[in-house]
């Protein structure tokens, strides 16, 4: 219990401290120390939880803390109002005001609940989330110490607000811990709003026009979700006399009609996890410095959305709310993976891929059967690590080469071999066979077939084909070995390397140990969630085969050595009709002049570009969302 309290409060205290420290050097050590403590506390928490076994419920009566929260919430509201008026975005004030009013009214004049729920609840999902937030989140913070220095060297025109930046990162971590440990809906909502506000402030860090625009987009979309959340809380308290998430899910799983709050919460989850039609905010979040994007995309923010959906999933099984969540998720997976094909900006590809993967997790949560949730949780774990790894390595490459365009990463394996290697691990983890994501995709496919949702199957098979396209294209760019290219100076800082390498190692360890994670964490969790014994999801034989594939990749260098062992090997130029001029980079053109060769990847703007696909996907998703919500809520009323 005290550990949970520590996990929530410590980052917040650190945030305050970091805000006050103005010296770069001192701040750096503070960040290291804080991250070390948080990681250690998260791991300790996980170990104690696993050994102790039992789930914990704490804090039944918390009047004082509730009052404090209401106070903080008012302050948050004040901040939103201040920024909205300053930048003349009055609609934001409106949305925020409505939910603030609802919540305060409920707090002070709402009906007393006969059996107040435990405010803090922790089970294995909490534990998994804590590990993700703690380890991945802190590694991103460590990375940020080195990155921000170079960032401000590159961008002299932005105001240096590093103290603010780091304190926001830690507020974010604290809020996430609060979110995943809470059970009381009002508490979850409180932390939910903090993360929305934090992401707003972090996205707008540069204060450029674009940054402000995108940060407000993030704010209003997330506040809309928050509004749905607030209505759900009010509805639960008034109609069902409950205020806990677990209780709500339990009622839903037992077949009691709780579809209205469930669908409202699911809506909130969809906005936060940036599903279509709300994907715009996450794509816009790229304007912020890389650690922000990494944090939003991997360990925090969007994970809060899918966390809520996964928690809700027993209550989503087989009803219209579930259908809504699954359809939106599946469609998002498909549409955004097509959109990612046409992107040349590395961070934008990553952003689309995040939305796409979250779509898959969302779809899994919506199906609501144990196989699907198993896949969803594994996807979430693997995605957090590999996506953060990808973002951070793109950021490092950008600092070294001045560009994050995929086309400029041509031949990275020669120019920046170490970073290229880390990137290859990240990409392989995102979609290749024996590695993490694919296993979960496999289970998801099985779950969709078992739940007879053929539409989902279609989305998944087409979506994974296009996913394959954009990742392989990127991989091919990195791996091109260009003659006579000079090694670039790798200015990646030690802190950045620590973060990148630890994540690459974690990625590989996860790939090797996923059966253990599944057996000790996810399967017991599922049997609690569904009150059922869980059948074997991936058989021993198949795990063995996957292990064999991993081994084969590991021993590949040796085998390759044996298979191509010939003494008569000769290195020649690549074939360009015999017209190379001494290396693979130039050729003689028809005017007898030397021309530089340029190999471009296929982006096919005309077929998969945003101009062509974005609007139809928005319209389609909005229509599906609105229609399904109306049917579901109308049917329930």
């Amino acid at each position, binding site marked *: 219990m005290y550990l949970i309290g520590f996990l929530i409060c410590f980052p917040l205290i650190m945030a305050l401290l970091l805000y006050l420290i103005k010296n770069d050097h001192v701040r750096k050590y503070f960040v290291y120390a804080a991250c070390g403590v948080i990681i250690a506390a998260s791991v300790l928490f996980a170990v104690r939880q696993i050994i102790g076994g039992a789930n914990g419920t704490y804090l039944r009566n918390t009047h004082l803390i509730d009052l404090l929260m209401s106070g903080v919430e008012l302050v948050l509201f004040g901040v939103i109002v201040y920024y909205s008026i300053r930048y003349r975005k009055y609609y934001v004030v409106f949305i925020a005001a409505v939910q603030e009013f609802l919540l305060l009214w409920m707090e002070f004049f709402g009906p007393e609940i006969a059996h107040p729920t435990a405010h803090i609840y922790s089970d294995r999902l909490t534990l998994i989330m804590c590990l993700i937030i703690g380890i991945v989140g802190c590694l991103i913070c460590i990375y940020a110490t080195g990155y921000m220095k170079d960032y401000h060297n590159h961008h002299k025109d932005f105001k240096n607000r590093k103290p603010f930046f780091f304190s926001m990162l830690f507020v974010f971590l604290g809020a996430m811990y609060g979110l995943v440990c809470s059970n009381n809906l009002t508490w979850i909502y409180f932390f939910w709003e903090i993360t929305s506000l934090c992401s707003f402030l972090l996205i707008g860090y540069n204060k450029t026009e674009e940054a402000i625009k995108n940060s407000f987009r993030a704010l209003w979309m997330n506040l809309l979700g928050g509004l749905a959340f607030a209505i759900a809380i009010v509805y639960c308290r008034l109609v069902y006399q409950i205020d806990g998430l677990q209780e709500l899910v339990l009622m839903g799983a037992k077949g009691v009609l709780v579809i209205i709050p469930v669908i409202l919460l699911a809506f909130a989850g969809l906005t936060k996890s940036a599903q279509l039609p709300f994907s715009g905010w996450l794509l816009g979040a790229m304007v912020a410095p890389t650690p922000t994007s990494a944090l939003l995309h991997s360990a925090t923010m969007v994970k809060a959305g899918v966390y809520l959906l996964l928690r809700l999933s027993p209550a989503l099984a087989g009803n219209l709310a579930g259908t809504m969540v699954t359809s939106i998720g599946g469609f998002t997976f498909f549409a955004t993976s097509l959109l990612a094909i046409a992107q040349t900006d590395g961070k934008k590809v990553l952003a689309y891929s995040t939305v796409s993967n979250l779509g898959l997790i969302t779809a899994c949560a919506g199906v609501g059967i144990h196989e699907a949730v198993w896949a969803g949780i594994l996807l979430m774990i693997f995605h957090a690590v590999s996506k953060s790894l990808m973002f951070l390595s793109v950021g490092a490459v950008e600092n070294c080469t001045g560009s994050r365009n995929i086309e400029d990463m041509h031949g990275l394996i020669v120019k920046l071999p170490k970073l290229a290697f880390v990137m290859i691990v990240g990409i392989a983890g995102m979609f290749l066979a024996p590695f993490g994501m694919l296993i979960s995709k496999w289970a998801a496919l099985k779950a969709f077939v078992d739940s007879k949702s053929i539409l989902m199957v279609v989305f998944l098979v087409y979506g994974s084909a296009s996913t*394959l*396209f954009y990742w392989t*294209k990127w*991989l091919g760019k990195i791996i091109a070995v260009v003659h006579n290219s000079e090694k670039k100076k790798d200015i990646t800082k030690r802190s950045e390397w620590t973060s990148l390498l630890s994540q690459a190692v974690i990625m590989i360890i996860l790939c090797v140990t996923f059966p253990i994670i599944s057996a000790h964490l996810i399967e017991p969790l599922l049997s609690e969630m569904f009150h059922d014994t869980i059948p074997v999801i991936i058989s021993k034989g198949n795990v063995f085969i996957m292990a064999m594939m991993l081994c084969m990749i590991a021993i590949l260098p040796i085998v*390759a050595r044996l298979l191509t062992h010939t003494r008569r090997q000769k290195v020649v130029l690549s074939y360009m009709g015999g017209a190379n001029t001494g290396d693979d980079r130039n050729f003689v053109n028809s005017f007898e002049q030397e021309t530089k060769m340029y190999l471009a990847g296929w982006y096919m703007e005309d077929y998969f570009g945003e101009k062509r696909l974005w609007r139809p996907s928005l319209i389609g998703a909005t229509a599906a969302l609105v229609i399904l919500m109306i049917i579901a809520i109308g049917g329930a009323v």
Partner: protein
Amino acid sequence: MWIRIVWTILFLILGPFAGGLLAGIDRKITARLQGRRGPSVWQPFYDLLKLFRKQAVIVNSIQDFLICGFFIFIVFTGALFFWGGDLLLVFFSLTLAGIFFMMSACSANSPFSAMGAQRELMQTMAYEPMVLLAAIGFYVCNGSFAVSDIAQAHLPAVLYLPGVFLGFLYILTIKFRKSPFDISTSHHAHQEMVKGITTELSGPILALVELAHWYENVFLLGVIALFFVASSWWTWILAVVMCIVCYFFEILIDNTFARVKWQEMLKTAWSVTLVAGAVNIMIVILIL
């Protein structure tokens, strides 16, 4: 258990022979269709042995390494299939092998092989949905992804999955690298992209690629056979006959169609997948 091991070993040993012989017959039939005498049916073996004896000229050493990955994973894919393993895992391993192949072409940094690799990638994107749907189709019919279970069904799967079978036959043209979909590399003298994805490979390394393609072709015909086999003995004969018929059909298509652009390939392959494959599976889910 023993039978499974025997099947795997048979594949590993006889696979290249069958694949090479098929390639030889293919060349003979193609020649005859064009009014030529054509080479001996053993010609592919002569080619392979020659390639193994030649010097290897390489652009860089990463290339060989990746080609070895391609070869090993293709063999693994086939072996896993004939062992009776999980069909989805088999197809994932096939994709992994394909990625190794494309990466090898990309690493060469040569205009023709890079173009070939991009086109190959497009081909992969075009056929991947149908391949996965075929696996799902088998699962829907038999309740299992294991090849060993599917081969023991009461009735041949094709009775439930005629659409999936046709869809698979359609993308098989892409997988066999036959015209109209031989856009990444070709056995014919399409010289606007030289040899596409294999341009920068030579000697023993090219021989490995050829060998891998033979294994792959045998494996793909195995998937075709899987549509026809069931528990009764005569279905096995039917399966063999159908494999031969399908192979001949692909040769015929190869010789009667001109190459198409990638747009055509992607559109038609995805539409066929949706119309034949997905609709078929939907119907099966509804009636079973």
